[in-house]
């Protein structure tokens, strides 16, 4: 099984080595009209507040989780800083929110993503303040929701832990950029309509992001395994890894 995955990864990677140039990142400052910017802020705010409450509750129940939460935040911080060459000939970066979503559930990552995106918007002119709501929505809400849902579903269905973690984190990374495509196509579309514009943006985004999504999925597996090895009690307290999952491998 494991060997098959490795092979698939290599084949996929090679396939995409020869694709067209493209781009993939957060939505730039000022590129969403005010009403859309406001819309995404309104959509994101409840999740961020839920995330804050969720963090508060978890830390109160078990104060030692604070460190693990900071670890998940640091992971997202590092990965969003790493602009990696993609096989399409341009650079993009992973989001790193999959790990935290698997450990803490989806909404705490809305809080962490807001911090990361604010840092990049204020100090790096990457993303933006006016587009913060939209970018939090894609990276901090939809991505983590999908990661969390997929991971829980696969663990429940009896999937091996590593496979569940890999697929959830990789797909979550892709979903973030699909949501970004959707957000852009809602604003910028031609006569072909939103669907055509989405297809255009998504085709560009997805292809650039696929190898990076695979890399992020694999890295998340490595980190989760390291945590399992040294930090079992806290992970069990979070009870997210599945009861049977702890002992396999």
């Amino acid at each position, binding site marked *: 099984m494991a060997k098959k995955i490795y092979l698939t990864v290599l084949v996929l990677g090679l396939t995409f080595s020869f694709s067209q140039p493209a781009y993939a990142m957060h939505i*730039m400052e*000022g590129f969403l009209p005010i009403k859309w910017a406001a819309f995404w802020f309104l959509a994101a705010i409840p999740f961020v507040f839920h995330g804050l409450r969720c963090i508060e509750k978890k830390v109160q129940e078990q104060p030692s989780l604070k460190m693990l939460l900071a670890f998940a935040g640091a992971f997202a911080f590092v990965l969003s800083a790493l*602009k990696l060459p993609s096989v399409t000939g341009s650079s993009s970066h992973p989001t790193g929110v999959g790990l935290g979503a698997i450990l803490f559930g989806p909404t705490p990552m809305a809080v962490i993503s807001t911090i990361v995106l604010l840092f990049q918007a204020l100090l790096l002119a990457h993303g933006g303040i006016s587009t913060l709501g939209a970018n939090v929505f894609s990276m901090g809400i939809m991505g983590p929701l999908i990661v969390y849902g997929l991971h829980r579903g696969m663990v429940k269905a009896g999937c091996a832990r590593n496979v569940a973690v890999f697929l959830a984190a990789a797909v979550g990374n892709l979903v973030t950029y699909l949501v970004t495509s959707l957000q852009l196509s809602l604003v910028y579309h031609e006569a072909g309509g939103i669907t055509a514009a989405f297809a255009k943006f998504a085709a560009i985004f997805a292809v650039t992001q696929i190898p*990076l999504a695979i890399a992020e999925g694999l890295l998340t597996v490595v980190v989760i395994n390291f945590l399992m090895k040294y930090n079992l009690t806290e992970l069990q307290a979070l009870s997210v890894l599945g009861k049977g999952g702890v002992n396999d491998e």
Partner: protein
Amino acid sequence: MMNKKMGFLVLIIVIIVIMPLVFNPDAPYDGADGRAVDAIKEIAPHSKPWFSPIWEPPSAEIESLIFSLQAALGSGFICYYLGYQAGKKKGKDLA
């Protein structure tokens, strides 16, 4: 066994990252932001951003300084935490 497996995964990650540079060495690998603007201009030629960044890094050097600061801060904490956990477990196993 476990460590070998994880080492193998890390190797694949490295390959994924390096591969484009090997197979497609002449690509620009430029930042995404500019290209995104081009694509939007293509769809909506008259669109203009209505808000610009409050502050921008004055040069590519300063930008990379801040990016590496971001990565350094994050990985600094990550390594501290992982080392701390590994040491804690070792201490427990010895006791």
